[in-house]
Structure formats: structure tokens, C-alpha cells
């Protein structure tokens, strides 16, 4: 488990900025996939729109928008940078 001061990417709201500290996925293939898509520790994510039903959510990372379901963004830990 990640330390308590970190929140999950799935806990963010549209417009938030988030810095990734840890990608902690039980399934190694999914972990690899998230890393390959640009969700790497130290990386910055801008939270975009949520789909009408609340899931998935669009995330801007490394210059591209990637949609993740809650069950994927649950595994990405980090901290909110600021809210504008």
C-alpha cells in the first residue's frame, strides 16, 4: 500500500493536476500497460472530462489524452499539485 498522504488518481476531479508517485498494480501486464501509456512515477497528469455515466475519465499525460476506468486509475497513487 502507498503511504496515507497519497491519494488515488481516481479520487481527483476534472481540472485537477496530479503528480504520480507510485503505480501499484497487482497485475503485471496492466502495470506495464499503464507505464507504457505514460503513467510513470514523477509524471504529471491533467484530469479531463468524465464520461456521462461517471466512468471512464480522460487524462492528459505526456501530450496525449488517455481514458482510464476507475479500476485502473485506482492503482495510480500521487498528490494533487494545485487547483485552478
Amino acid at each position, binding site marked *: 500500500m502507498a503511504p496515507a498522504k497519497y491519494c488515488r488518481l481516481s479520487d481527483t476531479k476534472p481540472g485537477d493536476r496530479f503528480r504520480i508517485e507510485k503505480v501499484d498494480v497487482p497485475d503485471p*501486464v496492466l502495470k*506495464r*500497460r499503464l507505464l*507504457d*501509456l*505514460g503513467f510513470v512515477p514523477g509524471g504529471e497528469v491533467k484530469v479531463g472530462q468524465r464520461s456521462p455515466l461517471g466512468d471512464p475519465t480522460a487524462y492528459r499525460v*505526456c*501530450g*496525449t489524452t488517455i481514458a482510464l476506468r476507475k479500476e485502473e486509475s485506482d492503482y495510480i497513487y500521487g498528490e494533487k499539485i494545485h487547483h485552478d
Partner: protein
Amino acid sequence: MTDRTYTVALMGNPNTGKSTLFNVLTGLRQHTGNWPGKTVTHAEGECRHRGALYRIVDLPGTYSLYSNSADEEVARDFLLFQRPDVTVVVVDATALERNLNLALQVLEMTDRVIVAINLMDEAKKKGIHINTKKLAAKLGVPVVPISARNREGIDALLDTVDAMAHGRIHTTPLSIRYSPEIERGIAKLLPLVKELMGDTHPARWIALRLLDGDASLLQALKQPPQRLIKEGNAYACCGSVKSV
């Protein structure tokens, strides 16, 4: 013509203009179909430059070669079993950080790599300046800036392909050093992999994948995918690789 045809593979992330480059290179001399047993589109065409004939294969756009989707397996298996004479990794000038992930993975598999930085016009508009000389020195392979949709840099790219295919370019691809524990594992596996696979496959890369527990790669090595052999317009399968 009696000289041989060289195979050139195009790789790259999705939306880097890889297929635009493919169309510029091959014009109408191309045909498409599916890879055997997979619903992944296969496109290849021909290109002539300075008298030599090149077979250009447009591989599926992927972010990586390790997540084991059908697209990624096709791209990985092509590099591994067909061993193209030259692999051109097309990267997006406006998103180098994301794109170099795949380039580094390819550099671990083969030393016959050219990095083509596409969308240079787009980068210029965004005020992004890329020091291609420095990048080439760091990666240890040629780096050619292009703008496929404006047909800029295509001749320079083809000249580099030509030089590499004819053995006039020697590369020193960046080799990533891993943690001491992983390097010890690689050192242990290397002689075994070399004994089983011979020199035809990238032994260090295979050792690394074995350490990672890549089941999909093991499956591919045990049962190499059907090879694409051109016969008129049809593809037949043949060939095998010594199994592990």
C-alpha cells in the same frame, strides 16, 4: 534487376504519421491484408531509391512491445523472426518523451535502427526545437528529421536507409543498464539463450524478457508465427525457428 530486395519495417506510436510516411514512400505500389491468424492490418509496398528495391512494411502503431496486445505481438514478432534489414522508428516531434519509450525498446532488439522524427513542421509551430545531432549521439543510431505530409526530409531518410541496408553505417545503440540484480540475472541467462537460439536473435533482450516472465514471448519462441512469404498476391506460411 538482379540485386536483392531489402526489407524496411516502419514502427511508431499511434498517430505519429507512420502511415503518411508509408504512403509517401510507396505511392500506389502497395497492398494490404491481415496478418496470418490475427485481425491486425498488414500493409506493405515497394519503394525504389538509387537503384535498390525496398520492401516497406507498415507495422501496427503501438506504444510498446511488451503489453501483449495483438498489435504489439505482430510488431514484436516481425522484428524478432523476420529481422528487417532496417527498422525505421517514426516518432512525433511534439511528444518525444512519450515516443522514445518505443524507440528504446526497439534499440534493445536490433542495432539496425533509424529514428525518423516526424511532424517537424508541427513542432516548429509550437516552438519546439530538437537537437537531432545530440539525440543521434545519445541513442547511437541515425536520427533524421522529416515532415512526411510536406514530403520534407524523405530523400535524406532514404539515403540513410540505403547506407544502413548496404552496411555503410555502424551503430552503437544505447544499451540500458539495469539494477545489479537484473544484470546478474542477464549474465546468467545469456550463455544459455545463445546456446539455444544461436546468434540470430538478440540474446540480451530475450534474457531480459525471460526475467520479466513474458509468457507471450515464450509462446512465440516455441511456436514461431507463420512467416509472410510473398507469392504473387497470396501469402504462404513456411519456415521455423529452433524451439526452446
